[in-house]
């Protein structure tokens, strides 16, 4: 239990930085390309400032990534024993992707002024590819835990007939990988939108700075709209994958107890174990069946198909709702903004900017809820139908001490990162760079 708490906290911490680490390079690429196309110095400043912020976050991202990478081996030796035999490939390749990211990040950070534009673009693109590939490969291991393939267990609990590439291309790999990547891009777009919107709401900024932030929020709105919509479309595929390979998780997500056709989708409320229903929820008739199989008469399995000790904790319904709800709101927000500016041809009003300020933090909450849903929804298993979490965890003492130490460490790091970011950008306001650009 402690092992799980420690690892869960570490992942929850790492996810924030990792998501940003995957998303920011894409934003930088877009800004660099915009600079090449428009020759507008603002975009150059934009990419530079994002890179500076990225460098600060990357330090924590790399450190926390190292922590989770090593901790997982330390805390779940029973799990890693199977992982090492079956699904070691993505971890191995991930290191190379990570190395590529690290090498080109150094080049982009410290040698940008010595490189021609095309080589600079190649560097930052390599960073983006490396970052995305790392995320996708680690997600592969996560996907495999949900839909394990590529091996068999004999009667003695030994792993036999290993097929590493079948494990690699397990059924949920592609959908889950896309889900993680586009949702990361979405999150960062909305974070950028938050910062720009917050600045635009201030009345005492110069026209120059106002123009700069308008360009940045425009990029954020477009990328945010594309990515949030892709996340939703892909989320639909994810639900269908669950329906086919892990119906228990889908049932828990929706608080569905009895197997039914024409199953309704419950929005909101919480799942009651005693009454076997989702209380105070809004039900959309047939929607769950449609979600699962594109037909209203699709049969969706309920929790009662399984013994109760194999049910995931039922609050995953709420996590699922938070994730989907935030995603839907963000789609709505970005498309409303596009409608306002390019159809009505009006400036974004203050209330919409205020909504954008909230968009970034909301996206982060959505990501966290999504990961929590996916990992808690998998319980009581670590590897679905193969290995229970309780059998995978370490037998060592001292997990408690470590847990306390790591929680303190994460708290300090969160505070210090924010403090450093604020202090750095206060001392280097965009105003100065904008004024200097003409000189």
């Amino acid at each position, binding site marked *: 239990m402690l092992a799980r708490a420690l690892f869960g906290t570490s992942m929850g911490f790492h996810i924030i930085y990792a998501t940003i680490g995957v998303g920011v390079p894409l934003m930088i690429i877009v800004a660099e390309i915009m600079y090449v196309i428009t020759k507008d110095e603002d975009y150059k400043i934009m990419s530079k400032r994002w890179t500076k912020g990225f460098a600060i976050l990357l330090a*924590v991202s*790399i450190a926390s990534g190292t922590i989770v990478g090593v*901790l997982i081996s330390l805390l779940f030796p029973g799990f890693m024993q199977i992982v090492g035999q079956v699904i*070691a490939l993505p971890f191995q390749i991930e290191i190379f992707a990570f190395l590529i990211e690290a090498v080109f990040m150094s080049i982009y950070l410290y*040698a940008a002024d010595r490189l021609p534009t095309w080589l600079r673009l190649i560097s930052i693109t390599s960073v983006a590819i490396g970052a995305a590939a790392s995320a996708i490969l680690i997600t592969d291991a996560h996907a495999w835990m949900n839909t394990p393939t590529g091996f068999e267990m004999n009667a003695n609990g030994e792993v036999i007939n290993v097929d590493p590439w079948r494990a690699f291309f397990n059924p949920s790999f592609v959908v889950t990988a896309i889900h993680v990547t586009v949702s990361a891009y979405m999150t960062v777009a909305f974070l950028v939108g938050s910062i720009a919107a917050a600045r635009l709401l201030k009345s005492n900024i110069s026209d120059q700075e106002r123009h700069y932030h308008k360009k940045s929020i425009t990029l954020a709105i477009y990328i945010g709209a594309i990515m949030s919509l892709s996340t939703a479309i892909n989320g639909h595929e994810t639900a269908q994958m669950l329906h086919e390979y892990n119906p228990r998780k889908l049932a828990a997500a929706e608080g569905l107890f009895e197997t039914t056709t024409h199953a309704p989708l419950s929005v909101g409320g919480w799942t009651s174990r005693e009454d076997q229903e989702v209380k105070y929820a809004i039900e959309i008739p047939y929607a769950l069946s449609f979600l699962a199989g594109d037909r209203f008469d699709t049969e969706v399995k309920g929790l009662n198909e399984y013994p109760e000790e194999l049910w995931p904790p039922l609050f995953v319904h709420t996590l699922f709702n938070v994730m989907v709800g935030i995603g839907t709101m963000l789609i709505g927000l970005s498309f409303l903004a596009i409608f306002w500016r390019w159809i009505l041809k009006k400036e974004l009003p203050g209330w919409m900017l205020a909504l954008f300020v909230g968009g970034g933090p909301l996206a982060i909450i959505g990501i966290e809820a999504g990961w929590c849903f996916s990992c808690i929804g998998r319980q009581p298993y670590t590897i679905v139908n193969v290995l229970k979490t309780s059998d995978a965890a370490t037998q060592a003492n*001292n997990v408690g001490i470590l847990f306390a130490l790591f929680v303190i460490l994460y708290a300090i790091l969160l505070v210090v990162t924010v403090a450093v970011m604020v202090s750095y950008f206060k001392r280097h306001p965009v105003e100065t760079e904008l004024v200097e650009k003409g000189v």
Partner: protein
Amino acid sequence: MEESLLAVAILWSILFLYSITGSMDFGAGFWGMVYGKKKDSTASKIANRFLSPTWEVTNVFLVLFVVTLVAFFPFAAGMLATVLLLPVGLGLILLTIRTTFMVFEGKTERFKDLLRITSGVTGVLLPSLLVSILPITLGGFIAFEEGYPQLLYGKLLSSVTVYMHIAFGLSTALFLSALFLADYASEAGDASAYQTYRRHAIWLGPLSLIIAVLTIFTMPPEASWIVENFRDNLYGFGMSVTLFLIGYVLLFVRRPNGQLGYSRLAVVFVVLQYGFAIYAYGSAHLPYMVYPHLTIEEGFTNPTMFNQLLIAYIIGLCILVPAFILHWKLFLKDKRYLKQD
């Protein structure tokens, strides 16, 4: 060659790579801290110029080692993880503090000194902590309770050999980094920083060698098996000492351009010195991963997985080598980077 032997050779090579790059990295952080306050010295500038673009890459080698260990030897991972949970967990905390504070230091004015000193000190504690894992694998510090291995902390913390290992890790990190930074300063044409680091390398080199030899004599009775095995690897250790002597003498030879010491050659010889020593040590350690509980054969993964991993390694290296060369040219060779102010 047996597959498990090949696997352990690859693993050991990664350890070699990390121990060299990690020593330079942690040591450079320490020197950067020591000279950070002195306004008249460029020694800290040189250290930081080396660190900024390289620490991420160095850090990845550590993860590469752990991942390779679990991938090649999944059955060893269980025992090592249970035994090493606390020391490695603490190491992770130190590593995180060190890394993040080092980066934060450059970005903020407030708390600059606090951040600098914390990252410098934790950086130097780390190699000591990592090296102290070695004596644990040599035997005598693990007991089985209810079928699960436990580390005997009391015995470990009261044993001389652990402290000797720590001293060895510390002196090695400082020696390697001083020597390397001397060469880096020479490449950058910074004569005063060169002299500073050369002086440190001159006293640290013999010290680390003496500590290494003394460490062997402090090994507890449980580890006598490896001391026996050392005798079969005298060739490797002999080569190591010889290479050290050559490299050391090179630091005192005057170059045609008047500079005292061939620093580049000295670095090459000293890296080879550590190479021979590490492989000799590794070969003496065989066939055990953790004496007497675990051999490499018992820890090894299935051959199918191993073959696929090998292929992935080869492809990965083919992509990475050009990237490393570009990196090296930009940060360790390019005069524009080395000489900027």
